[in-house]
């Protein structure tokens, strides 16, 4: 069986790890297990690396504020970081049942949430599907490979820049993954039945001796161990001169956009040899280039609207109904610069690294280097809310410019009810903002805080003067441990936070 499984892996690009006690999904293990038959690991079998948060008693009465607890961590505990294992994107699917991560090595790992079937509290005998399960590896595959551009004599990295899920319309799951130049549509399917009792072949695939066949039989479907397969269904290539930074699926689920530094293209999911250019900000003379596109996203419900953000801190809302080429925006969102905070780095820190629509489609949040801003789509003059992420870095901008940290692109995320916003920072800190109570908290993704059922302790950074006991000084922050990529479950309060090569899952206490 080994031989045929190997062929299957190559053809479909499918690699799924078996459950191994204490195993991680680091690169070494992945390559070793290709020859084994794949099946989905059962819940709770991930070994000593994981500590799970069992379901707790309900905790109401905290005013809607979330108390975060550690749930799971995935990845190696080794100090040495393999570059290929660095996570480069994190994305939940539409019901939060699946969580996809992409890494610098071009791999995609999909986790699935296990549900436990339990008795309902008030009517024993009636079972309900308990959704507070853990996430376990569901499928792993190599999405992109490094390529070499012979004309420019440059490598094209296999790093996965973005993953976006399509909404399910059939039992298969589809996702788009992209590196700098090529977007791929992957189909992830499950197989839990196998036909047995063929006439011409026996169960191991060997042809039966025709003379031994004396009667016809009808093959029967028999259950088998769950097999998850991923196969590339479309490859959308050669449409981007510059590096792709965003992809976004339209609400019509038929089209999607891809954005690079200077252009945005519109694709139909069925058509790979054509794309429409809808935004082009490349000047005729490259010497005049002063602004690039940094992120783009379709509106969650209006299929004709999309936004794109720029390196100058502006966001443009475009309507595809107005014209084919959306160079002219319908709305320009820009906040006038605060003259008291001007510095040499004002423009760099105003560059927007991420833009995300709220679930209800009325707001969007943008992330620049030091803050997150919430904008009302009806008002383009200024944001309705601004939250400081790490203002203590403002006095350190020169050093951060020198060590390139000032160019780090942080992502941000909305909670399912659009009340909370989260974003990452340095030292494996991440920040949560409650728009209603105006409160914010700093938490840390660390293996030291892995006590189950315990609420995470808020962290604090002191910028100068007297350092209190639990605080950490700005100068002691580890700028190599940064949380750039994170995702919030679409409905529940579950956070997936990528800390370099580890994936942390946090859940609210209730």
């Amino acid at each position, binding site marked *: 069986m080994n031989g045929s499984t190997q062929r299957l892996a190559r053809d479909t690009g499918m690699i799924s790890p078996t459950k191994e006690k204490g195993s991680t999904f680091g690169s070494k293990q992945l390559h070793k297990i290709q020859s084994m038959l794949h099946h989905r690991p059962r819940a709770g079998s991930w070994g000593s690396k994981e500590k799970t948060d069992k379901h707790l008693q309900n905790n109401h009465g905290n005013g809607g504020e979330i108390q975060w607890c550690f749930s799971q961590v995935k990845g190696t505990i080794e100090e040495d970081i393999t570059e290929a294992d660095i996570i480069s994107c994190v994305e939940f699917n539409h019901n939060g049942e699946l969580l996809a991560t992409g890494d610098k090595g071009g791999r995609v790992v999909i986790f699935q949430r296990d549900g436990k079937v339990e008795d309902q509290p008030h009517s024993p005998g009636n079972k309900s599907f308990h959704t507070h399960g853990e996430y376990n590896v569901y499928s792993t595959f190599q999405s992109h490979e490094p390529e*070499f551009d*012979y*004309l*420019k*004599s*440059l*490598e*094209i*990295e296999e790093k996965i820049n973005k993953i976006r899920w399509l909404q399910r319309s059939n039992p298969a799951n589809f996702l788009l993954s992209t590196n*700098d130049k090529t977007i791929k549509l992957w189909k992830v399917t499950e197989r839990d039945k196998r036909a047995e009792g063929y006439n011409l072949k026996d169960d191991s695939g060997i042809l039966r001796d025709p003379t031994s066949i004396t009667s016809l039989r009808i093959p029967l479907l028999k259950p088998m161990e769950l097999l998850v397969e991923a196969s590339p269904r479309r490859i959308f290539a*050669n449409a981007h*001169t*510059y*590096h792709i930074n965003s992809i976004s699926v339209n609400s019509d689920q038929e089209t999607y956009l891809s954005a690079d*530094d*200077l252009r945005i293209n519109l694709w139909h999911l069925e058509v790979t040899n054509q794309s429409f250019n809808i935004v082009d900000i490349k000047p005729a*003379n*490259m*010497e005049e*280039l*002063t*602004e*690039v596109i*940094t992120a783009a996203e379709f509106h969650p419900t209006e299929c004709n609207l999309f936004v794109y953000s720029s*390196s100058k801190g502006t966001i443009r809302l475009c309507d595809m109904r107005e014209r084919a080429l959306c160079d002219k925006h319908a709305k320009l969102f820009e906040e006038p610069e605060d003259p008291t905070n001007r510095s*040499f*780095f004002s*423009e*760099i820190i105003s*560059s927007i690294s991420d833009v995300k629509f709220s679930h209800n489609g009325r707001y969007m949040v943008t992330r620049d280097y030091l803050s997150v801003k919430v904008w009302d789509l009806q008002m383009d003059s200024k944001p309705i809310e601004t939250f400081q992420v790490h203002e203590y870095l403002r*006095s*350190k901008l*020169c*050093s951060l*410019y*020198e*060590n*390139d940290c000032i*160019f780090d692109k942080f992502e941000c995320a909305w909670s399912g009810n659009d009340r909370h916003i989260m974003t990452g920072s340095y030292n494996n800190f991440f920040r949560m903002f409650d728009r209603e109570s105006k409160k914010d908290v700093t938490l840390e993704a660390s293996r030291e805080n892995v006590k189950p059922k315990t609420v995470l302790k808020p962290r604090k950074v002191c910028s100068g003067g007297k350092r209190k006991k639990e605080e950490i000084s700005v*100068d*002691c*922050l*580890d*700028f*190599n441990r940064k949380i750039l990529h994170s995702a919030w479950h679409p409905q529940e309060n579950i956070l997936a936070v990528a800390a370099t090569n580890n994936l942390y899952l946090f859940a609210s206490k209730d």
Partner: protein
Amino acid sequence: MGQGIKRKLDVYETEKTPQNQRQSIVDISVCKLQVNKSVKKVEPSLLRSVLILNTLKHIESELRKEGHCAPTNTTAMDIPEVNPNSTVIDFLPDQPIQVSNDSNSATEQFGPLPSIDTFVGNRSVSSEKITMETSSFPVITESSLTTIYPTTLRIDDIFNDLEFNIADYDIFSSVGNNKLTPLSADEVLHSCPNSSSPFGSDSFATLSNASLSPFCKSESAFEDLDNIMQILVGS
């Protein structure tokens, strides 16, 4: 620079004078724009290059407002010479504007800013028509190249690293869209000993018209480039 794990208070913070800080930012920026391809074989980030260039331009306009600079040619095509012996940036000989250069003076000199293409990798694949006027070609002299880069770099290293803006050819767009058998790295390198970038015949005419070109060295260069063109168009 600054790749350490924990950061201590940086020395730049202690020098608070605006001119010192300005100068150090200029130095850092120029260093950052020098594409160090031996470290990374990947195309540098356009966002990063644009932001660094804009920071330099911002400082330049500030200096101009403060009256430190003589009027410059703002359609910047010249590349500022960086004298490796001092941290001052001079103008290129094209428009010789003499600015007094006291070694101890706090005044800074600033040349016209380079085109972003000088520092950023070649963006050749595009379907736009090029207007190959001589003016759109960055004038790069051998001497200016040696002063931009540290003198320890060999000229060959520089030429291998630099991708010139012969960009936006039609020929490359058609090449990029067709399914060509990719050349092996060896084939490309062997066919052009002086540079790793093939050039089209259109641009070559422009090259020969340009006042100074590092590639108009010898007849063999012409032949090599013709060879490359033939390989590319599959004739």
